[in-house]
């Protein structure tokens, strides 16, 4: 039988390590482009303050990047260590984008990141800018391939189950790459990273302006961040991930859960701004609804309906019953009765094999499941509505606040009065955590919302684990918690230290703390 504690611990470990890793990824994704912008201005104008900006923000980028690299290693190990049946079952498809990520993107990013930090004296200005640019390209390509892999977990196209090898096998590489879910996920995720980096630079620059130190340095950084940030937040919101929720069955389930749409509504569906969803009763209490909004968000139209949980349940039950048959034939085929008729019958049923596997939780033999067990499996085929509902709203709420901050920052910066708007500068400082909160909850929506599947409609999460013991997992989880806490402390401490020092940490003798005994004069930095 399936050991639920063991499965939950496997999921917990992956969730901890993945969410922790993704605290460091967004800044890397966005900061590389901010560095490209700053350094381009330096190369074009020759004004050294822009090189100092590139170097200083590059330092903070580096402190963050180191932990991103370290925690990223975990992600590559973990499919094999903790999800070994998953690795076998879908490695033929899922492994390819990961390997290509290494060859095409991670090599590029990592090779040039060293040159970015240590190549200043050994490269010409243009060469160094080229290095920074390639580092940014590599970083973002990395995200592309990872999200192609992740997109395939959400919407597994271009692959087929092979009973002989007992796994999914690739049928079309192009379909895998051009998976619509992967494409929208890529845009949504990288622009969220750009927002995070922009908010980081915006908030820290605001702090310097508020403290009246290195003001010309900070204002220039602020300008870059508010422009890039505004463009990025618009991109995140307008090209939201939800647009991909139309494609693929599990994406529809997610959407219904996000909206707590217990019954299919007539188009265009309303968006529940607030409420208390109750999974048992299948009602949302105290719901505050905005007419039309959900229909527009999800379908980009007024006449397509957003399908509700009631209709999905009916569908899932049919597929589970089909899946039982599929499993029956799979057993026959695996036990040598692979007659052409059996193969042909299995081929017509195999799309529902995954639904049949959901029953393994209740009966290892699948085919003898009772009606009650089937009903239970139908219930299992949805994620819990509460966490989905709230995570989505927290994400969107953070996004809306950031939109306001970026719009106002951009507006007042364009009118050159940003220094007088101290309330806005403080708002920017306190908004620094928002992109991270939004991003982490966004991942909860995407991955928790995929449950009960490891691969949508193909492989239930509880079957995807390794053959380890609960004790093994307790030990490794304890290890991860200890190590990751240590990493977070060292990283946070170092980051704060350098943020406090500001550009003085470059030791160019131009900035605040090195000017303390002389006349404080920020413009010196700008004119040097």
């Amino acid at each position: 039988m399936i050991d639920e504690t063991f499965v939950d611990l496997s999921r917990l470990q992956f969730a901890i390590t993945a969410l922790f890793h993704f605290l460091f990824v967004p800044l890397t994704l966005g900061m590389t482009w901010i560095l490209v912008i700053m350094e381009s201005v330096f190369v074009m104008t020759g004004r050294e303050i822009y090189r100092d900006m590139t170097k200083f923000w590059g330092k903070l980028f580096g402190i963050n990047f180191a932990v991103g690299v370290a925690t990223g290693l975990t992600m590559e190990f973990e499919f094999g260590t903790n999800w070994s049946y998953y690795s076998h079952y879908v490695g033929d498809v899922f492994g390819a984008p990961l390997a290509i990520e290494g060859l095409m993107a991670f090599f590029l990013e990592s090779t040039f990141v060293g040159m970015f930090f240590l190549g200043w004296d050994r490269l010409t200005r243009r060469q160094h800018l080229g290095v920074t640019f390639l580092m940014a390209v590599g970083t973002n390509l990395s995200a592309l391939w990872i999200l192609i892999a992740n997109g395939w977990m959400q919407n597994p196209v271009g692959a087929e189950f092979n009973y002989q090898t007992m796994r999914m096998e690739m049928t079309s590489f192009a379909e895998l790459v051009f998976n619509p879910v992967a494409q929208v996920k890529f845009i949504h995720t990288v622009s969220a990273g750009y927002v995070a980096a922009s908010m980081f630079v915006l908030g820290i620059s605001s702090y310097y302006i508020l403290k009246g130190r290195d003001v010309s340095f900070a204002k220039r950084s602020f300008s870059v961040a508010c422009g890039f940030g505004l463009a990025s937040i618009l991109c995140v919101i307008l090209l939201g991930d939800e647009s991909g929720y139309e494609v693929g069955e599990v994406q529809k389930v997610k959407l219904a859960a996000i909206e707590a749409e217990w019954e299919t509504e007539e188009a265009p569906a309303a968006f529940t701004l607030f409420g208390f969803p109750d999974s048992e009763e299948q009602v949302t209490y105290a719901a505050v609804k905005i007419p039309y909004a959900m229909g527009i968000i999800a379908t980009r139209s007024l006449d397509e309906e957003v399908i509700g949980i009631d209709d999905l349940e009916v569908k899932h039950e049919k597929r589970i019953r089909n899946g039982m048959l599929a499993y029956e034939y799979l057993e026959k085929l695996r036990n040598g009765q692979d007659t052409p008729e059996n193969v042909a019958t299995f081929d017509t049923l195999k799309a529902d094999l995954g639904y049949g596997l959901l029953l393994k939780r209740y009966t290892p033999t699948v085919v003898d499941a009772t009606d009650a067990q089937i009903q239970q499996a139908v219930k299992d085929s949805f994620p819990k509505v509460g966490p989905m509902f709230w995570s989505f709203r927290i994400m969107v709420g953070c996004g809306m606040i950031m939109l306001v901050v970026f719009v106002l920052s951009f507006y007042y910066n364009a009118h050159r009065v940003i220094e007088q708007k101290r309330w806005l500068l403080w708002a920017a400082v306190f908004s620094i955590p928002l992109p991270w909160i939004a991003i982490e909850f966004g991942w909860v929506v995407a991955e928790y919302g995929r449950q009960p599947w490891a691969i949508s409609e193909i492989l239930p999460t509880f079957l995807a684990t390794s053959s380890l013991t609960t004790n093994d997992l307790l030990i490794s989880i304890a290890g991860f918690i200890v190590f990751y806490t240590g990493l977070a402390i060292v990283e946070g401490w170092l980051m704060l230290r350098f943020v406090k020092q500001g550009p003085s940490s470059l030791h160019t003798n131009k900035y605040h703390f090195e000017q303390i005994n002389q006349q404080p004069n920020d413009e010196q930095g700008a004119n040097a």
Partner: protein
Amino acid sequence: MIFDYETLKLLWWLFIGILLIGFAVTDGMDMGVAMLLRLVGKTDSERRTVINTIGAHWDGNQVWFITAGGALFAAWPMVYAAAFSGFYFAMILVLFALFFRPLAFDYRSKIDTYRWRNNWDWALFCGSAIPALVFGVAFGNLFLGVPFNIDNLLRASYQGSFFGLLNPFGILAGLVSITMLMGHAGMWLQLRTDSDVATRSGQYGRYALLAFIALFAAAGVWVANMNGYQIVSMPDTQSYANPIGKVVTTAPGAWLNNYSAVPLTIVFPILAFAMAVLALLFSKMGKPALGLASSSLMLVGVIMTAGASLFPFVMPSSTNPDVSLTMWDAVSSHMTLNVMFVAAIIFVPLILGYTTWCYVKMWRKVTVDEIENNTHGSY
């Protein structure tokens, strides 16, 4: 499809070998450098000199390892699944050790106190010595067979323990791994540093090479006498991947079968020994560039020796030899191997190209003088 399934399987066996060689020659060298760090660098400036020889490259070098992992996942998913979950605590240990490296490289220079830097030096040492040791131990255990089984739905389960890996032969293989990387790194440091640091690097590098020669020879004798695995019958190599369809037996000395079947393969162990001796001599003669070239070829020899001895096995099972994983049957589908092969032939030359450019741009002897005059532009 460019090649038939059987050819692609062979090419992927070769390509995984190339990635492992790339890993050993580049990232393995960085690990060796970190292991030598405290021996050859006595002062902070000397240690910074050592670190800055690889400062701009360690991150790119590490991707050889990451890509080898990714390629294993894509090309040999069953091996990735069985090995990573089977060697669970060994892998977790390696992972925790590897956390130290990016941080140590990036953070060490950021604060100038003895305690801070000394701690990061130890972090670098552990972050390098532990993975080097564990990889060697894991390789050694492949020769002994790994206690795992595979059921009819192809779920792998491991029956051994972490401490079971630490058997005498496993530890011997771990020491081979450590000494070969230290020897290789000694050549690199002798070439890229000067005065005292270079002298000490050459010296310790040569000690390591001597130890490597002895340990590698001992391992060879051991392998010749241990129980090796051999295939009695197996499904057609052109047909779909089926790791549970063959019959395998064990016999003393069977790991040497390939050398009598294809006598040419004897060049691999010869290469390993000859190049180790040459590296020693070149280092002694004060020609570290040739020493480095020799030690690189030595690593090629060692990895190919291991591969050729095990061939076609990748991960033999001591629990149930019939489910041993081989490069014929633990592989991806024809299509995936093909797609990945195309990706590899496009990107590997590009990678080699821009990596070379970076090495050329950063090439110089890193001297203590330079390091002391440039405290903020280097690690």
